[in-house]
């Protein structure tokens, strides 16, 4: 069983197909870097995986479950472009709220643990509004990893993070990998992605142009993938 199975996924905005029959399989425990130019459909595909958007055609299964079922959604962690925390709640209140939405047994304890992991324990009662940019980002990371999800869906996770948040995120991603979680992250910064990735997929014009394990060639020459599998400029 794959952790993610997307079969012939089409997504239309009006008549315009943003995804044109994208198919993708991700093995359990893999870390997939989803590459592609701006407008290739990375965010659209990830939003469909995170059940924020419905595919026009095609089927998506996460961990063997239909993507829209609560069982599937309970087991995924999503980090999108926005940080997804409430400015007017304190750090711990934010995490407790998401713990309740996830129907965790002990939201408070889980929240405190998560804050510990991202180094925000000392300011747990501070409002998110009063946090610095980096602290807010770490809080967002804590939110996405709150319930130790089996599948992580991260949309451009490294783009606007500061050094400390990047370190925290990388640490958490490694932990997740070692406990067997699957990770999908989109990025257009190839070098960064290659450090963690075990697999690589390339989206071109709404289709998966290449998908496979990461190779030494790609590590050595990040442009290789675009030259050999991407559409001509």
């Amino acid at each position: 069983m794959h952790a993610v199975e997307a079969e012939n996924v089409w997504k239309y905005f009006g008549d315009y197909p943003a995804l044109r029959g994208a198919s993708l399989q991700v093995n359990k425990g893999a870390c997939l870097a989803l590459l592609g130019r701006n407008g290739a459909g990375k965010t659209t595909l990830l939003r469909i995986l995170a059940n924020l958007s419905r595919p026009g055609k095609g089927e998506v299964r996460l961990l063997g479950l239909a993507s829209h079922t609560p069982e599937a959604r309970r087991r995924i962690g999503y980090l999108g472009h926005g940080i997804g925390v409430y400015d007017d709640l304190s750090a711990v209140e934010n995490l407790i709220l998401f713990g309740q939405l996830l129907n965790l047994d002990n939201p408070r304890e889980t929240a405190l643990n998560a804050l510990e992991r991202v180094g925000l324990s000392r300011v747990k009662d501070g409002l998110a509004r009063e946090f610095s940019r980096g602290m807010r980002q770490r809080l967002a990371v804590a939110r996405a990893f709150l319930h130790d999800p089996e599948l992580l869906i991260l949309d451009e996770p490294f783009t606007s993070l500061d050094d400390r948040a990047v370190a925290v995120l990388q640490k958490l991603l490694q932990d997740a990998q070692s406990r067997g979680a699957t990770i999908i992250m989109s990025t257009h910064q190839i070098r960064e992605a290659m450090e963690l990735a075990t697999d690589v997929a390339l989206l071109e014009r709404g289709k998966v142009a290449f998908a496979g394990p990461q190779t030494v060639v790609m590590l050595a020459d990040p442009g290789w993938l675009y030259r050999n599998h991407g559409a001509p400029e």
Partner: protein
Amino acid sequence: MREKLTYALGILGTLVMLFNLNTIFGDLPDEAMQGTIFRIIFIHVPAAINADIFLFAALCASVAFLAKKNFLYDSISVACIEVATMLLLLNLVTGSIWGRNQWGIWWAWDLRMTSQLMCFLLYLGYLLVRPAIAEPTQRATMSAFISIFAFADVPLVLMAIRLPNVKTQHPGPVLETGNLAPVYQGPFALGILALFLLGTALVLVRLHQETSRREIDSLRRELHSF
């Protein structure tokens, strides 16, 4: 094919309308109570009936859109609602003119007028909000939602204005009760038919425009992507 059908319906509708006008103004006797002004019902009532038909069609299309996500249904829905709103306005204006003549006032807050005005306002809201939503899928989804909500409101408005403190002046219904004299029934039916044919032709025109508009949206996206 589509264009031919549109023209055929439009021309047929106009012909029926002209034939009917000839009968209404040429052959029909005046009504005993109202005199010649009663002839307004041959456009006033058909407009209302056709508006309801198109609104119901829009409701079905909206439900179908939410279920099937096919943009054709969204186009049908907006086309029908636009034509229906125009027909509602026609109904309100002709009714108001009749009221000025018969009651001496342009507007009375009675049951049928109020409900019709509310119906008009509800769907006017739909038409106003639509262009404000930029993304086509979202626009179609939200529109379907509003259309379903609006249609559910219509029976409630009817109930609300039947509350005890609301009075009525409007003539009773003519269709169900059989109060319409046999001579008038033919022109009445033809009046409904004429507006239905014309309305359908306009819906078809609007449908085509909506398709082009979607094409424009997707071309714009095409230009901005890649």
